[in-house]
């Protein structure tokens, strides 16, 4: 099982991307999407924004479970109040609650990042520390 995580800014431009391999269910933490999905994952994640835009103003919720799918790969989105989107593309099944928990902690991490005076809103995140923290959260839930 593998996860592709991306954070999309409020201007629909990507802020952060990470490939995550799972440690659960005998997985060794290595990210392995097949090639035909791996080189399309950005397009797949991006296309799910169409579906999000369709429902985001009709719903009160932040977490959109399995909002879109593409040949066995599901998309999960967490939408913040400021229109930042955390997107996960995965082939894992029945991990809705874990992914929700992951998003909640990721949101906390991102908010802390926003508080940094050296970080501009909607600008790409290149911090290694941020990546390490995200990986730790992923290890915990995914």
């Amino acid at each position, binding site marked *: 099982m593998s996860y592709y995580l991306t954070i999309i800014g*409020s*201007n*629909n*431009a*990507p802020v952060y*991307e990470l490939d995550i391999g799972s440690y659960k269910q005998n997985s060794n933490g290595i990210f392995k999407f097949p090639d*035909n999905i*791996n*080189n*399309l994952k*950005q*397009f*797949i994640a*991006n*296309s*799910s*924004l*169409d579906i999000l*835009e*369709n*429902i*985001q*103003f009709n719903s009160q919720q932040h977490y959109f479970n399995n909002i879109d799918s*593409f040949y066995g790969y599901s998309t999960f989105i967490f939408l913040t109040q*400021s*229109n930042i989107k955390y997107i996960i593309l995965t082939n894992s099944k029945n991990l809705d609650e874990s992914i929700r928990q992951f998003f909640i902690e990721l949101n906390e991490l991102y908010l802390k990042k926003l508080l940094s005076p050296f970080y501009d*809103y*909607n600008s*790409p995140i290149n911090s290694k520390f941020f990546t390490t923290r995200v990986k730790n959260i992923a290890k915990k839930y995914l």
Partner: protein
Amino acid sequence: MDLNIPRLFGKLGESSDIKINTFGCTTSATSQIIKQSYSPKISIVSTESADRIAKQHSEDIDNIHQLFTYFENSLAYGESYNGSFVSNPIPSNSIANITTSGCVKFVGDTINFIDNKFNSSDELFNLDVYTKDLKDYVRKIDNHIRLLNDSPLDYNSYRKDVHSISNLENSIYLKMLTMLSSSDILSSFECFNHPIMQLAVISGNDSDVAVKDLISSFENKKYPAWYDKSSTLQQFIIIVNKNDNEMLQNALRIQEDLKIKRGKKSNIITIDIELLNNNGDNVDKIELISSLFVQNINEDNKDYENNSILKISKTTYDIWKGILSEIVLKDLILFMDEKMKKWNEEFIQPRTSLTGRLFGGRKWGSNSKPSFFSFGSNQSNNGQTGKANEIVSYNLSGGYYLANSPEMMIRKLGDWYFMLGDYKNAYTTYELVKKDMINDKANTHIASLQQYIIFSLILGATGVPEIPQITLKMISSMINPMINSSFYSFLSRSNLKSYALRFVILTAELYLLLGQKTKLMIQPTDTTLYFNESIDHFKKIIDSQLMDSLSTSFLMQRVAYTFYSFGDTHSNVQNISNPYYEEENLFKLNVLNPNLENLGSTRYRKVQLWLILSAEEINLKEQPIQAQIIIWRLKDELSRDTLNEANTKWLENPKGLFYQIENELETL
């Protein structure tokens, strides 16, 4: 430079007021093809001397049949047709409308059953030949695109000629659809290709023997048990030279003989043959475009683009048009009308009337059914074909119903309703016979019947798009199970790939048509339902991998077009005034990307995804231009609603497919 667009399809949109869509051909063009392919068929047979006269119309015409195919469009589109394709779709839903438009399809001598045509379950077309033809056509389009501009093809020249290129590109899908739906192969389980009229064309110089041969070739031939000769009307046209009195006298004699001795109706047509040979400028000429389906007739003639335009004098055009429309409107439609009334009284009314419902639990003329309520099996297990008045009507080993069996007659009645655009009656007629076919375990017949039940439902609903007649419940509980079972039947039980392909692709096209029509209404209903169904069915074919990669690529582009349709015809746009908080919170303004008016109703990012998928399917070495055009379209799409370049850069990352294809195209 003068653009030499392939005449067959390139003419579509070139002179019409159809708005050229850079993402795919419009549904009005595709629905024209679908409806025209299911129009009544007229089989053309001719004598050698009649063919010689036909040849004088143009060097590219070999026989009368070829000549008549140039009149298909003018018959379909009525008086407004004047050598160019007009955008008005064929009227539907009313026999009156169809009779005034007279949409028919001229076919060759398809009922001349010989050798392999005797088989009751042939494929519609050979998939290998289809693939080869499509590749040839794409190659031809590629050459035209290359020749569009003197400078080499690059993004700037693409943008400059985007409309011409889109027109050519769109023609490929139309061509694909035409090849899927244009087969003239006769089958035992559907009657659309069974000619309703056989038009024998002779000249005034023909001998009695030649005429006799034509008649006997129709009447004395041994037909398969599933073919009903009596529902084909034979009629004659006698061509006479205007200045040849002797020819006219002979023609009048033949006409009288036909009427008195044979009971056949004939029309004499007087043509000025000298005028045909006159190529001078003083003659008022008219350009006729050949039928969309003509290329399949001339499979050997690869240079069809030159012979797809016929220039004839206005006088000759009027004469032929007059006689053909008279035959279609007066003879063909009346014949159909009479037959349908007769079959209705004979087969439908006994079933639908109160007495029929109470006592009609058995088959007509049969006392074999003990059950009062059930319509039971009526099949022959020993493979005998049976005679007309026998009880057994379904031949299990041959897989066909006898031509005069009630099941086949009802099926034929439904098909004729369908051809005339009366989808409501077609649907009820099909439903009436379905149960019998299920009892007889006539799998191919059921699959085909269900196909046209679905087509009738969707086409019927497109007639009144303001009232959504197809609901989600109908789709999930009735239509989709039928589609799945028919698709499975065609593929696995009957091994008829071409039927399965045609069925699902046309269903997807019809859903797209229904979605677009519904969306155009003032109060758009939930049209996403129809678009999603359309996409699902295109995906079904893509996933089945029944087609070659080039066709799959064009199907993927069609999926992209369907996604594009989500926002394309959005008419119910509300004017939204700027909320007060946007002035105070600058970040909120970013939500305006792409456009607050249609935010959520579009699927442009899905379009991007499917465009890149379609580019991946294309063999870059064989069709580099096709892949390049998709990449350019995708670039245009990516720049549609981005406020900064980051969005594009993200999707164009070096490990991504977009970058890989673009890079590979540069190295070619």
